[in-house]
């Protein structure tokens, strides 16, 4: 399917109308996308053997360049070559977000191989509430882009169509004539509308309906709120053909609600700031395929043993292409259900469900509901916060649950409260609750960074996973 997408690329060499010639980073991207087109059909055993070969190459680099990883390996009595098999890899204890946070600079590789640079930093708040900074190499970003191309192909997206994207950290609504690079350099794309994710739902619905997109990129909880608003108020988006969801768990009710109301396909992906897109929904079966060319997946039960198809377990992922931050056996904090072979014939491993990562909408006393921007990236600039969770218990009260390195001063509390009020755009009362080691997890061990515990007046079950 990527093949049919790639057949439409345009080149970037002056004067060459045909054939499409590409140079520079775009050439690397399309070459890799072409490679991924072939690799997805390899037999599972072949994919696994290539993954472990790549893992050994990565581990050999990381042992030499990351003091933290060298320590992890030494403590487990392992050499890089030992990671060349599932059994060897399991001897390495999993890596928690907090370990990354606590390792500081010693986590990262001091040097990266020639050709992997430059490095960019991604700050991720994560669904488990512990912010970390991941350095991503140019190669790892290249994979991200190539997999985005695969996402376009698998979802059979109309690139020439109008697209609306709901995004965090935007100052306001933006409309651009195309989807932006790299996709707009390779294809003639339609226009793009970007809307801040903390936009009030009625306003969101109005803005989207006015633009009338062909495809909509949105988080599941926002999608559900949008769908309910549209249903209640008769708002229609007549041109909509495809909804792409990401960043949160897409629950079956949210998917079914959107598909039946908007009469469109909903295609989901599993992504994170640390790892990029780790899994995509299969265009044929609807199951999730791991992006094995860059992510090695393990699904572990409570005892740390590998799950069998049908079992639910912790998702432990290894980024095979990031030579700047060794995310090797990284515990994502998410849960998934292992699938069997996919009927599509692709050799990429399968998850039948991805659980966890549900966030709720904030509800303001004036009735506005939206996805809150919590500005968690700045907490650590104000106070020694290790973990956070925001709970809306009452209509005008937010509870800030914290694990801290040392007690906060009054000034630090005031600063945090002000930051939070500013971030969510409403003068809530803020209460602080402190925990010793970690904030208690909900049922099934799941953690949600923001949780609204108010009863839902619309009778829905927004955001419950």
């Amino acid at each position: 399917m990527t093949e049919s997408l790639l057949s439409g690329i345009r080149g970037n060499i002056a004067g060459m109308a045909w054939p499409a010639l590409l140079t520079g980073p775009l050439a690397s991207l399309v070459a890799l996308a072409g490679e991924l087109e072939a690799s997805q059909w390899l037999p599972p055993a072949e994919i696994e053997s290539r993954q472990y070969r790549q893992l050994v190459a990565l581990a050999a680099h990381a042992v030499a360049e990351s003091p933290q990883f060298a320590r992890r390996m030494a403590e487990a009595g392992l050499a890089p070559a030992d990671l060349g098999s599932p059994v060897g890899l399991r001897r390495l204890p999993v890596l928690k977000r907090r370990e990354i946070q606590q390792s500081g600079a010693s986590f990262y590789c001091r040097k990266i191989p020639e050709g992997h640079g430059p490095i960019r930093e991604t700050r991720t708040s994560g669904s488990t509430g512990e912010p970390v900074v991941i350095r991503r190499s140019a190669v790892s970003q290249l994979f991200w882009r190539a997999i985005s191309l695969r996402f376009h192909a698998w979802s059979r997206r109309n690139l020439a169509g109008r697209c609306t994207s709901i995004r965090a950290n935007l100052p306001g609504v933006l409309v651009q004539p195309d989807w932006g690079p790299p996709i707009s350099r390779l294809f003639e794309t339609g226009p793009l509308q970007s809307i801040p994710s903390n936009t009030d739902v009625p306003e969101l619905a109005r803005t989207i309906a006015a633009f009338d997109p062909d495809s909509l990129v949105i988080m599941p909880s926002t999608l559900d709120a949008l769908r309910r608003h549209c249903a209640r108020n008769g708002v229609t988006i007549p041109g909509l053909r495809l909804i792409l969801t990401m960043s949160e768990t897409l629950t079956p009710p949210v998917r079914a609600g959107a598909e039946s109301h908007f009469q469109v396909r909903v295609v989901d992906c599993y992504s994170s700031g640390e790892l990029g897109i780790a899994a995509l929904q299969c265009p044929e079966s609807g199951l999730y395929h791991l992006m094995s060319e860059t992510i090695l997946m393990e699904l572990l039960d409570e005892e740390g043993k590998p799950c069998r198809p049908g079992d639910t377990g912790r998702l432990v992922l290894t980024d095979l292409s990031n030579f700047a931050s060794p995310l090797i056996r990284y515990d994502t904090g998410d849960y998934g259900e292992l699938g069997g072979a996919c009927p599509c014939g692709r050799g990429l491993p399968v998850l039948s469900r991805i659980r966890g990562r549900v966030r709720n909408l904030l509800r303001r006393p004036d009735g506005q509901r939206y996805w809150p921007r919590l500005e968690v990236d700045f907490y650590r600039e104000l106070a020694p916060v290790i973990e956070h969770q925001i709970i809306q218990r009452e209509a005008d009260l937010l509870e800030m649950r914290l694990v801290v390195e040392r007690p906060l001063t009054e000034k630090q509390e005031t600063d945090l409260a002000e930051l939070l009020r500013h971030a969510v755009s409403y003068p809530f009362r803020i209460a602080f609750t402190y925990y010793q080691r970690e904030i208690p997890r909900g049922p099934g061990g799941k953690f949600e960074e923001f949780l609204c515990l108010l009863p839902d007046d619309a009778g829905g079950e927004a955001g419950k996973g």
Partner: protein
Amino acid sequence: MAWPPVLGAPLASLAVLAREMERSQWLPQAEIEARQRRQLVAVATHAAAESHYFARRLASAGLVPSDLGTPEGLHRLPVLGRRDIQQAGASFFCRTVPESHRPLSESRSTGSTGHPITVQRTAVSQLLWSAINLRSHLWWGRNLAGRCAYIGVYLELLARQPHWGPPMGRLFETGPLLGIPITTDIAEQVRLLAEFDPDTLVVYPNNLDAIRRHCQRSGSSLSGLRLILTMAEALTPEIRTAAADFFQARVFDCYSSGELGVAALECPESGLYHVMAETVLAEVLDEAGAPCAPGGMGRLVLTDLSNFATPLIRYEPGDYAELAGPCPCGRGLPALARILGRSRNILRLPDGRRFWPRLNPIRYRDLAPIAEYQIVQSEPDLLEMKLVVESPLTAKQEADLADLLRQAVGHPFRIAFTYYEGEIPRGPGRKFEEFLCLLPEEGEGQSR
């Protein structure tokens, strides 16, 4: 990165183009032609602005670049001969070349007249050349991990490498490579080849024939040889069949030149020659300059669609070809049934008739101990038979050979004999032509 491969700029460009060409070869012929016309207008627009010579050519024909976007418009542009390029000098080349097409390289192409022409080729030309090279590997089922030997024209010393070198050696695990200078004595070539035991041999047709004959005479064999790739000279059916039978190997040919790179590759299914339409637009024209129909034989006129440094637009390299209909393989790339070499390889009868002579060389050795031959028409009614022989010929043998040749060409020419020690002298670029007409003619041909 052990897997999957992540490629930096030049190799990534090649990999992307190769994939693109995997697809484009299957486009319908009409679609290919439409894309070629669009690209031709782009190259002509650039050339009209940057090459004084091309601007003059267009203006003299009363044309603007967009006129070349149709077959009728293109036909109104007079063809460009090798001599035109020689005479145009620096005004022929584009003054500026888009940055993304740089750097430039020079390709000198030898001519039979001893007047080489120099063509500037761009990084884009080079990229397309490499992609076509990759295509040839795929088409001909070449074993990249195998041992490859080539007889090199520009090689001065024996070359041995553990792999094929860039770009193939960077993209694939390739086997070892042996390069033998074409000036090496045939017996020594055979000895080196037998010692190396190649899987693939890249060679000029007449050199191949000499190797085959030597092996046959001396009882040597190249037992590992599976694939023979020929280029640069016309591959006659006799040479092809003899080599395929003797070595029990597949033989594939390509049509290339220093000016245009590889312009056509032999189809792996049909044996026809597919024009590399992604970079070359080919016309086959009859004596009146009108396009030939499939089955028709005519002058080959080529346009390089991707060279933004040297406008080779409607360039006549001096070769003749027979246009074929659609190829049974299903590829949309135009097909040529035969490429017949240069006009200098055409026999001219005193009454003005012209044709490619059948020389019937298979029978020469039945009549006399001939090691090598070449037939040269130096006067309208005289054919000179240049020979290397194993022992001096008798008068009877000379008379029999002369009779056989007269019969083969269908005219009672006078026949003269000239004998050489070792080998018959090669032309520029070490190319060998079994028949050469030296009578003066307009727009003389050149190298292949």
